[in-house]
């Protein structure tokens, strides 16, 4: 069982969601985040004043999938979120030991 954490462009969230739904992955957490990768933001100019936009708006999508689906899920996310330009984002994969349903206290079995 893995937690897949993807940082993507804000406008790519719907595409990623659709791609994951095709894999029957519908549970996810989407969060507005700000940050930067290698590009370290960029310089914007407004009325002659330059200012550095260091933390760029991105979306974070978290899903938890069985080990058997990790590869497909990562592939779907990357294909949906890619533009080929700097700033397309990152995918992190983390191990998950156990998960529980809060309402029932029931332990999930994958």
């Amino acid at each position: 069982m893995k937690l897949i954490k993807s940082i993507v462009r804000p406008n790519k969230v719907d595409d990623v969601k659709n791609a994951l739904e095709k894999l029957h992955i519908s549970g996810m957490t989407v969060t507005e985040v700000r940050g930067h990768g290698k590009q370290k933001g960029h310089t914007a100019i407004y009325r002659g004043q330059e200012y550095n936009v260091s933390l760029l708006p991105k979306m974070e999508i978290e899903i938890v999938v069985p080990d058997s689906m990790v590869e497909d899920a990562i592939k779907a996310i990357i294909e949906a979120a890619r533009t080929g330009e700097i700033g397309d984002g990152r995918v992190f994969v983390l191990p998950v030991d156990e998960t529980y349903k809060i309402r029932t206290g029931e332990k999930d079995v994958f």
Partner: protein
Amino acid sequence: MNEPQSVSAEPRSGAVLSPKRRLAEARTELSLATERGEGGSQALKQYSYRMDAMVEQLFNEAPRASQSVGVWALGGYGRRELCLHSDIDLLVVFAGEIGPADERFLQGFLNPLWDLGLTVGHHIREVGESVGLDGDNAEFLLALVDARPIAGDASGLERFLENTDAVATATHTLEQLRALITERHARFNGTLFQLEPDVKEAPGGLRDLFGAMTIAKLTDPALLKQGGAGARALADAEDFLLRVRSTLHLQLGRQHNILGHELQERVAESLRYPGTTPRQRVERLMSDYFRHARAIDRSLRWALRAAPVPVGNNLVRGSDGVKFVDVRRAADRPDTWLAAFQAAIDCGCAVSDETLTWLEQHAERFDPMDFFQQPWHRDDLLRFLRPRPGLYERLSEMHDIGLLGQMFPEFRAINCRVVRDFYHKYTVDEHTLLAIRNLEQLTTPVPERRRLSGLLSELAQPELLVLALLFHDVGKWRDDDHVSESSRMAKRMFDTLGLDPEARATIEFLVEQHLSMSHVAFRRDTEDPEIVRHFAALVGDEERLKMLCLMTLADVEAVGRDTLTPWKEELLWGLYVDAYNHLTHAYGDEVIHRNETALAAVIDGRPADLDASDIEAFLEGLPRRYLQLFSRDAVYRHIRHARDLRPGAIEAWIERQGVGWELTVLTRDQPFLFSNISGVLSSFGADILRGYAFTKSDGLVVDMFHFIDQERFLELNESGDGQLLSVLENVVSGRVDLAERLRRREEGAFRQRMPGTPPVVRCDNESSRRYTIVEIFADNEIGLLYRMSRAMSESGCDVDLVLIATEGRRAIDVFHLTRNGTKLSPPQHSELIANLQGVLEGRP
């Protein structure tokens, strides 16, 4: 003003009495009543009615005036408290300028009054006199409070007063009254307990009573019932003092108001005071006098202390908020109601509960058109809607009592409307009002919102944004496409208000596109230049972009408390900056081509005198932005002038636009043309606020400058526009040396230069395919545009396109330049920037 009542004073035979006989009979009647000890309020009222009849007769018998004229009773006569030997104060109001026939009328009317031995105080006024009443003397202002029409045109005074500033006049009248009371009391050592009192002037006398009544009349008619000695005690005091005064006038046969020791016995006897000795009768009379004087004094002090403050025509601010002085006067004038809410915003308080309840009871009687009968009512509404603290609260009050819904039935359609969509947290009407509150909050900037507050402060007409917000969701009364329905409903409001075409287009755009910016910012890849280009094309110009950005922000923030996250705000701002830069830098590359839709639309709607070929020839090659900046009518007008343009000639005209003026110029390009035009405007003291300059590849130039006529040259000179255009022609043709014209003015400007923000000059060769872009950000001053553009021409540059904007004290000018038909090289950049910096720093 009270309506006149008339009494029949004619003999039963039907014969008309002479004025002399009328006066004599009136005096006899009052004298007899006074002798009976009954010369109080009732007798004086009757005497005043008889005097009215006599004045009306003299008015009718005077030679006819050449125009409408009315006569008004002022002061004590206006209150119908005319004593036997009181002065008669009259106001004569003419509809227009007084001519010889009117002077004959005045002589024929006033001379007989003097011949009758009356002491007449008269004031002559014309309705059109523009001098404010706040400059008038105190006595006249106070007398005017009790003005009452007697004869002739009864509407003249109202029209005369309409020309004055009601608040200033009422405030000034009250200030003058307070000063007069203080001064008068000082003459009596500040005490009412005078053993030989002046029943008119002394503290606690008639003047104090009328002072208290005047304060109440100007501020709150119920004031004297709410405190002081009370209305009943005042009425008794008034009647007593008038009976005493009438007796004094009768006893001495002249105007005399001092109740001296000797007269006290005669008055006590005349007023039938009981007592076996004169001393007993006098003691009882004077005891009554002091009791009444004390009541008046107490009420006057209460009135001075508790009177609300005048804040508008028929409006005052009391401890519970803004209210009408005379609700009966307001009842049939729904067009005046908005002023109560405007005054509340101006005063930073609420509209009083009592007034809100009253408005709620009366609002249903009226239709939208009743609130906006005249163009100035629309202007009042737009002024009211300017975002500032208090607007949300006042609009909410208006909505709560149903007034907003009566003014705009479209808004009533979303009253408490619930749309279950799981992200809106409030009803549709409250969401709308909260969106306006969000905008309002930007007027008191906090550091994290400074850039958005700046955008709001730069808007020329932020009230249109508020109006658009008010209507952006009215279509949600239906369950389907609310945007189209909101737009349709907004159009009905346009007709109610009689908005001008530009305002209609702006509001329509904002309502129809109010979801577009959030859609692009949150759901599209704004790093794709094509997405930004499309969005910028949709918006059209910077002003609309700013409005749409602020509307989106206010709208999203009003969905729920945490809906507008810093994350979303950053996305919106990023799109705004990209679109702004695209609009100001890249528009020169997007020109109108033959066969494109926008061109076809202009051709299809053309007037009969224009051929399709004229339109094609004119528009082809101009930036598309030209069509977004000018109305269709303006475009056709430009085409006509371009068609008629002779070689070497200039087609130019000046028109008033709002508080400013617009100069439009069509001509063929030549070196220094732009700097010459802007320089000529500066030489007449014009402050150029915004403008556009377009140069086509065939050399045709279309320039438009919007400016403020700071020295009122155009306003004060009937042929001022002709003179300016003549100088322009002479300068452009080289017959007049502009530098010489400007030298002295520029020297003055340099001397007066205030320390400000350092200027910024930025050169950009990347944003446009065809042009080098030079942006200048500097403190605005006379001649700045001239000097900058001249420096560019002197550096060998062609000024092809210009956007001129002024925001506060800051000039923001964007020039699109070429040199010999191409962009500038890096060394040419450096040279130009050095030259421009030198000009900005005032170096020769």
